[in-house]
């Protein structure tokens, strides 16, 4: 037997070695690049910065974390950001469900392909350009003013929520659409044959099967909104969100320890969220 054949035979029977080989490269990458970076950032949160020279002094202190947890500014901004992220997520899911359902179950195969292309195309227009487009839509005398007869919401938190919901919509539609495709038509027909009205079928059959996909979509929109600082600068008026605080402290204040401490907030929130949804199997539906 050649060496290649021997190696192949060994690998076929030794699952563990195969596993180790498969995982070696990706795990090394992820740990080295990401985990270490994240850990280092969190460690930085426990240090301070010398405000005169701008250098980080490695004296251990909980001050930054205490400031973030107890400071009125940080509490207010955190609540505001969570509220925005939740609203964006709810809006996106509410809008995505009918579209995804239409695409998956009602549209003809040809229309389906067209619709998927139509939903995905806006992803390619730059995020910045889309945000600025919304700015011009919501401005005084813009399209929104013209459409509502002068009652455009203008810039502010509602505008931010609308724009963020708009930006992340394709990311929410995709997993839900994929999830709906996995719901066999035969199940739905059986349910209908057994006499269940449409609403009941949706509620008792489709929704439970779709739930992981919905959660998967929500992870995208929630997390993307939690850390965004660019859209709120463009359409958010004078408001600021968590992302802005982190950004200001990394840049303006040159205070990486404080920025890292603030960054802990979305990290903790996302970990809690991910932990909570792990059971639903959503993580396999991203």
């Amino acid at each position, binding site marked *: 037997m050649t060496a290649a054949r021997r190696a192949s035979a060994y690998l076929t029977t030794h699952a563990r070695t195969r596993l180790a080989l498969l995982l070696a490269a990706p795990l090394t990458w992820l740990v080295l690049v990401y985990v270490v970076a994240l850990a280092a950032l969190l460690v930085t949160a426990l240090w301070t910065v010398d*405000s005169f020279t701008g250098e980080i002094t*490695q004296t251990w202190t909980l001050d930054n974390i205490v400031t973030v947890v107890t400071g009125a500014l940080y509490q207010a901004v955190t609540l505001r950001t969570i509220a925005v992220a939740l609203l964006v997520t709810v809006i996106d899911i509410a809008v995505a469900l009918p579209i995804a359902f239409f695409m998956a179950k009602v549209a003809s195969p040809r229309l389906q392909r067209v619709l998927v292309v139509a939903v995905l195309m806006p992803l390619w227009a730059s995020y910045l350009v889309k945000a600025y487009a919304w700015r011009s839509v919501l401005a005084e005398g813009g399209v929104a003013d013209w459409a509502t007869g002068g009652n455009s919401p203008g810039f502010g938190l509602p505008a931010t929520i609308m724009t963020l919901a708009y930006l992340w919509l394709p990311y929410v539609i995709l997993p839900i659409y994929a999830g709906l495709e996995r719901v066999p038509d035969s199940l739905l027909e059986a349910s209908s044959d057994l006499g269940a009205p449409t609403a009941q079928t949706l509620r008792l059959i489709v929704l439970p099967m779709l739930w992981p996909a919905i959660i998967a979509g929500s992870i995208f929109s929630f997390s993307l909104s939690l850390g965004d600082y660019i859209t709120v600068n463009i359409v958010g008026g004078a408001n600021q969100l968590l992302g802005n605080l982190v950004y200001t402290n990394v840049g*303006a204040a040159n205070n990486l320890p404080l920025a890292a401490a603030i960054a802990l907030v979305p990290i903790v929130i996302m970990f809690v969220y991910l932990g909570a949804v792990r059971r639903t199997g959503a993580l396999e539906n991203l």
Partner: protein
Amino acid sequence: MNHNTARRPALLAGLAIASVALLSACGTSAPSGSGGGEALDELGDTEGAVSILAWPGYVEDGSNDPDVDWVSAFEDDTGCEVTSKTYGTSDEAFSLMKTGDYDVVAASGDASLRLVAAGDVAPVNTDLIPNYDGIYDFLKMQSWNSVDGVSYGIPHGYGVNLLMYNTDVVTPAPTSWSVVFDGSSTYAGKVTAYDSPIYIADAAVYLMATQPDLGIENPYALDETQLAAAVDLLKQQRENIGEYWSDYLKEIQAFESGDSVIGTTWQVIQNSVTTGNTAVVLPDEGSTGWSDTWMIASEAEHPNCAYAWLDYIASPEANAQATAFFGEAPSNQAACDFRDDCEAYHAGDEEYASQVWYWSTPIADCLDGRTDVTCTDYSAWTTAWSEIKG
């Protein structure tokens, strides 16, 4: 193969903690930046390359608009190939300079002193720069570009923060900053202001006139009490602010559409508004302004090319081109020969300029010379600014 699986989690955890601790100890160590280095005594041969960090529009090489190019001539003359990076705010510039990747930086006054303190820039030997003589004297050796009589850079153009208003909505024409402070409720939701901690100085300028008891001598030298007063004023203003602006395209748009009707502005914004219903004024209380400085990195890899650039950009024609494109007054006296809009920018008007408090970095050693109190520094201003925005 018999693994004691109960031990594994503990082992892995221990390994994880150890490796993180090790890497953290290696990481986030203070990079060299100690001491800004010495100024060059004499120039040597140019190194063939130079890396520049500047505001967008300062280093144009024709790649954005073929007609806008003052870099190619420099490259042809000196053989120094220019790579440039733009930044959005002074704070971004400050962070980027820490990487040590750039030889030259165009820093506004709110970043320059921080750069000096952090040791990221070196003193500049102005004798090595022939075009330095042609620069307006009132820009040289100021608090934002020199420390203890040592020059840290070459002035590049200057501008004033003016009060801009929509002539259709705001009548009569305002002459005081009170319209954006005490009187801002008249235009609630349509007032705008510059989105940076340095704007606190604008509030301080207003307080200098309206609350002289506070004893503010220099809007960049504020002790705790004075800063608190400025912060209160700005928190009141916040209630009527529609949006803050940091990129001026945003403000141009806002004034053209009518989302903003009054607020702080730059001359270039007034010049760019096409709806014709805006005007600017330098209010009675005076104002803040900015004069950028070309500085050289303390660990610059290409110091000779760096000096060559500083000399070139201070030369009349290049200075005229660069400052005209951005929309500011030139720093070189002869630059007005190459521009026809010097009047609009009050170029060389020393009297106009004396009403202006140019951006300077607030530091703990009071810039007005007081030694009995500690002044608030830029990091305190940044914290205050976050709280003002709420």
